[in-house]
């Protein structure tokens, strides 16, 4: 405890000395989030300055070991750090796929050399990562992927196509599942490669969604040479890495989903109801819609209670296992229902795609509703989540 208070004093002093005043409090010049990578730009040079100082201390990823670019803090110390930064209204902005998904897998499966190289570059915000998993013929059945990597000397030669690679067109590196042994049972012929997006033979093409343009891309590999040293884990055992990664992904989706459940939208569903029904107070006149709104609000209360219960259990030492699938399933469907109700309530203005007579906010409502259609498909369809729950949680026999 004494140690922690010493640490708090140190942090407070360091913050006082190094954090530029315009990187603190309301109206600070900090961006919401730093994705990192070669294309990172800064609205204000002080934001970059502050970011560099955080990197130097290892405070972009405070709990990582110092050898990999972190600060080696204990959870308790990290809590103090976060409290002290919150106190002055500043933050360590770095957030990306590399931190959230790739890094935990590297920690578990990579060689020491790979960790030093790649974790450090993630920690420093130098590399923005994207994920190359799905293929046009391999969606829910991810392990049936066909992108081929053939050994040629110290390289693999990769040919094939990935889909749903978020932000591939603005990322620096991609972590990829590729088939290295087509003769083996499908889960046992896959390897996990790290590939520089600037390698000759890689190209990307953005995917247009029903909601309009999107961060998703197709990524094509045409005789791309990848050094064998960029393979993580044993050859043909890449599925072990993939499984660990998918679990992180579901946990992350379950964790951060408040937004897609409608909470982050500018107006609450009730506000939309009041405005579109021209009922600024009192009982909402459209009984059926009122009832639907109640059900949605109630579902959300129950969902959040469940999330809290799970977090409380985790604090008591029970980690989240396959129940993560329940959160992914429920949150995505609740989000869709909320978006659907919102769009219906918004009425005629939300039916307009373009026109000189249509408020931006309503157009946004429609695009969110359409984009939300992907939430029960990407990152593991609802059907896959139901399979996981029935198999891993309920212990029901396979088909």
């Amino acid at each position, binding site marked *: 405890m004494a140690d922690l208070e010493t640490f708090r004093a140190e942090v407070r002093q360091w913050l006082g000395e190094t954090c530029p005043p315009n990187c603190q409090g309301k109206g600070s010049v900090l961006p919401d989030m730093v994705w990192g990578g070669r294309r990172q730009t800064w609205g204000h040079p002080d934001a970059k300055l502050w970011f560099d100082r955080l990197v130097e201390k290892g405070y972009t990823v405070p709990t990582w070991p110092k050898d990999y670019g972190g600060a080696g803090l204990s959870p308790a110390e990290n809590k103090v750090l976060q409290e002290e930064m919150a106190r002055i209204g500043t933050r360590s902005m770095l957030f990306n796929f590399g931190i959230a998904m790739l890094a935990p897998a590297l920690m578990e499966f990579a060689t020491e050399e790979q960790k030093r190289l790649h974790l450090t570059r993630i920690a420093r915000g130098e590399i923005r990562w994207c994920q190359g998993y799905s293929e046009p013929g391999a969606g829910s059945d991810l392990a*049936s992927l066909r992108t081929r990597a053939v050994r040629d000397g110290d390289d693999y030669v990769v040919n094939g196509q990935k889909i749903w690679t978020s932000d591939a067109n603005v990322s620096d590196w991609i972590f990829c599942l590729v088939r290295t042994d087509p003769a083996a049972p499908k889960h046992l012929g896959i390897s996990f490669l790290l590939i520089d997006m600037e390698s000759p033979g890689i190209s990307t093409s953005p995917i247009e969604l029903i909601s309009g343009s999107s961060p998703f891309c197709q990524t094509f590999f045409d005789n791309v040479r990848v050094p064998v040293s960029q393979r993580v884990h044993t050859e043909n055992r890449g599925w072990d890495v993939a499984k660990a990664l998918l679990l992180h992904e579901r946990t992350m989706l379950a964790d951060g989903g408040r937004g897609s459940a409608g909470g982050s939208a500018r107006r609450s569903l009730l506000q939309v109801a009041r405005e579109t029904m021209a009922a600024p107070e009192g009982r909402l006149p459209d009984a*059926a819609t009122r009832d639907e709104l109640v059900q949605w609000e109630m579902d959300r209360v129950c969902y959040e209670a469940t999330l809290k219960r799970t977090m409380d259990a985790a604090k008591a030492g029970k980690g989240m296992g396959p129940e993560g699938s329940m959160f992914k399933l429920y949150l995505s469907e609740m989000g869709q229902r909320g978006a659907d109700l919102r769009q*219906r309530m918004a009425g*005629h203005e939300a039916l*307009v795609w373009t026109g000189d007579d249509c408020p931006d906010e309503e157009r946004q409502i429609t695009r969110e509703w359409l984009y939300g259609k*992907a939430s029960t*498909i990407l990152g593991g369809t609802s*059907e896959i989540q139901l399979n996981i729950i029935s198999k891993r949680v309920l212990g029901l026999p396979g088909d």
Partner: protein
Amino acid sequence: MSLILNEEQVQLQDSAKAFVADNWAVGELRKLRKDTGKGYPEALWRKAAELGWLAIPFPEEYGGLGLGFAELGVVLEELGRGLVVLPIVSSVVLGGGALRLGGTDAQKQTWLPKVCDGSAVLTLACQETSRHDPYAVRSTATPAGDGYVLKGRKVLVPDGHAADAVVVVARTSGAAGDRSGLTLFIVEPATPGVKVHRNLLLDSRVAANIDLQDVRVGADAVVGKVDQGADVLDQVLAEAAAALSADMLGGIQQTFDITLEYLKVREQFGAKIGSFQGLKHRAARWFCEKELSKSIVLQTLRALDDKADNALQLASVCKARLSDTARLSGKEGIQMHGGIGVTDEHDIGLYMKRGRVSEMLFGDAAFHRNRFAELRGY
């Protein structure tokens, strides 16, 4: 009445199927997003007119074929199945329907022959609130001289930007929400004070918002009886709900067919995805909903033709059911397609979008459930 197609109706269906196959591809819809004109393919409109489709429900004395909604529904179902964009519901059912039901002989003589041969497009401007609520009209028509002055704002007028004349619902007495006190007027957009805002809808159909700023019309613009416009309006909206339901039915059936085909060819985990019981059972339930939807469309169209006592009730059952099934179809169609289903490249999303707009037009399921209960007295 029989709920299966008779021989003439089967022929009409064949001809509509051929029309779509020969003249249209679903992909045309993507091009219409960039259209800034009428918003529908004018060449097709002329062909539809040549085939006599626009004349179907009108008496022969005004250039019509003297047929009914059962026949019009056959055509609309096929156009819906192909996602063809044509202002048939707007011109033939809404605008033309209002004149057919409530117009003076002079109004009919002026407009109906043109509706029948496609040389004019009509529509109806009713909605003012966020969602369909036909008596919630605040736009006013005030007597002035031997005519009226119209003031107000109409929204979501189907094909309002392309119409040669618009039947406008305005209030001559009472307050917003009252069934009585509504009057219908036929107004040409060129009349001073009319301002039309063109909006592309999310399914690439077009609707307009229309401002009426002290628009002067003559007494001869009144369609039906003053203050009792709701008598005509109720009937027109029921007919429009049923006609649009036929269009929706086509879209639902095509969504189902496309998806069923996909279930039979797409493989995952070494098997056709249609062999997974989870999807199979959902497909079977969807099939049942589709069949029920089809039945109620057929019954409602015939009840309208027969002027059955319960026709308005049936129209509400019909539109509520089709709205629900369209929503289900859009959802299952996309979900069963997986990733490809949410891309703009695949047609399934276009069907969902059309279904969504239709769901909201002329009253969604919640509206019609409430209306059905009111018509049933509870």
